[in-house]
């Protein structure tokens, strides 16, 4: 066992970048293959083999409430940024914003979108404008619908708390890169707003997400908005590719467990 372990450690130490690069290269054709498959399923009109996500159903309900009551929903894109390590979570938030923007434009609702990073704010403004433009209502778009509250997470949380407690909103959607400041915003939102859908990827924040939202998006579920709400083939294909990669990783872990147990 020591020889196997030391061999594996030696291989990893010397060729870790190459191994990671190989895994990435393996992921590219996998992604393309499943994207094509998802596209074929969508064109054929067949049901997608995706499990039910109550969070997205609640999102649709929040938008319907917004249309009926005239109250806008609040969409928080998190305290992350575009261009650093939290880019993926911020992109997930943008992918969630896109279909919600389409729905808002169709209903004539102006959502209140908040961000803690200026780059993310600009990207969100672009998304919202695209949604209104596609509806032929570009004149209805207001760039002040997307607000930069503050770059610092605590200040962002304070601003968001004020907004949630003062403004009449139809619901609160929080998805993106959050730290512990999430809890303060979510707690106010849970008591003040009728609907609250929240998602985070950091395991340290997930307990807060669980207690403040009745339909949370835990971990990688936050990255599925493009597949469930947007019905984009590349996102659906990504889910299939992730599942297969997960199976591969599980097999590797099981193999390691087996080797460790066998050799004591």
């Amino acid at each position: 066992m020591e020889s196997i372990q030391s061999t594996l450690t030696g291989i990893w130490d010397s060729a870790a970048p190459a191994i990671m690069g190989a895994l990435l290269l393996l992921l590219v054709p996998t992604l393309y293959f499943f994207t094509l498959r998802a596209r074929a399923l969508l064109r054929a009109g067949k049901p997608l083999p995706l499990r039910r996500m109550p969070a997205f159903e609640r999102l649709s309900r929040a938008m319907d409430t917004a249309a009926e009551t005239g109250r806008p929903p609040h969409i928080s894109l998190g305290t992350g940024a575009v261009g650093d390590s939290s880019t993926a979570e911020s992109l997930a938030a943008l992918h969630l914003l896109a279909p919600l923007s389409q729905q808002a434009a169709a209903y004539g609702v102006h959502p209140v979108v908040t961000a803690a990073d200026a780059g993310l704010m600009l990207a969100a403004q672009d998304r919202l404008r695209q949604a209104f433009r596609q509806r032929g209502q570009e004149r209805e778009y207001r760039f002040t619908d997307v607000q930069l509250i503050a770059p610092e997470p605590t200040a962002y949380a304070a601003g968001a708390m004020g907004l949630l407690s003062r403004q009449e909103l139809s619901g609160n959607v929080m998805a993106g890169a959050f730290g512990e400041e999430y809890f303060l915003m979510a707690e106010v939102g849970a008591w003040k707003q009728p609907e609250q859908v929240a998602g985070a990827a950091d395991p340290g924040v997930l307990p807060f997400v669980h207690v403040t939202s009745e339909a949370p998006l835990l971990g990688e579920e936050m990255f599925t908005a493009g597949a469930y709400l947007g019905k984009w083939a590349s996102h659906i294909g990504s889910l299939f590719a992730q599942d297969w990669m997960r199976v591969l990783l599980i097999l590797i872990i099981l193999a390691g467990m087996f080797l460790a147990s066998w050799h004591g």
Partner: protein
Amino acid sequence: MKRILPTVAAMVVGIIVLIDFFVDVGYINLMGRLFVDWAVILAAFALILGVLNLFLVHFRRIRTRQKGWPYSIILILTLWTVLVLGLLDPAGPQGQSVRWIFQYVQYPLQAAFFALTAVFLLTAIYRAFRLQRGENAWFILAGILVLLGATAVGGWLWDGFASIREWIMNVPALAGARGILIGVALAVTITGLRLLLGVDRPYAE
């Protein structure tokens, strides 16, 4: 061209920075570092636009007398105060005036704000347990055992609580966290790949 050019630029830049991580070639390292520096500079300019947006939103709030408009006045005044002090001080943001504001205003405010977490947590737990009773029983049990293992009272009652706490932290909690982290890592990787391959274009129509 309007759609192709941003996509090609994003793909090329992303791939060069990625290759820089894997290989150690002189000019690729240089280009990778250059692109990262440019990203930092662009983020600074984006911040200017963000501050402008902040001004416009709050001015509008003051002008239309929306709820909470006095806070908008306070925000704008404090923003200008710190900015002007930082510009006027010869030492810039490290000057005495800005440091005084940080030490006696920002520091205590931030610390006090986060202290609210403890109070909010109690009400959150109460509300969560009222809503869903079944699965939260394990939540309550784990929380009580971990607290007993952390406090001196638990140690005074029984030494075994520390071991139980360690087991809960290292086995079920950590295992669940790792599973989530693996899933998140896969999602993050694929999100990045979609961006690099030009499949996702959040920057273009």
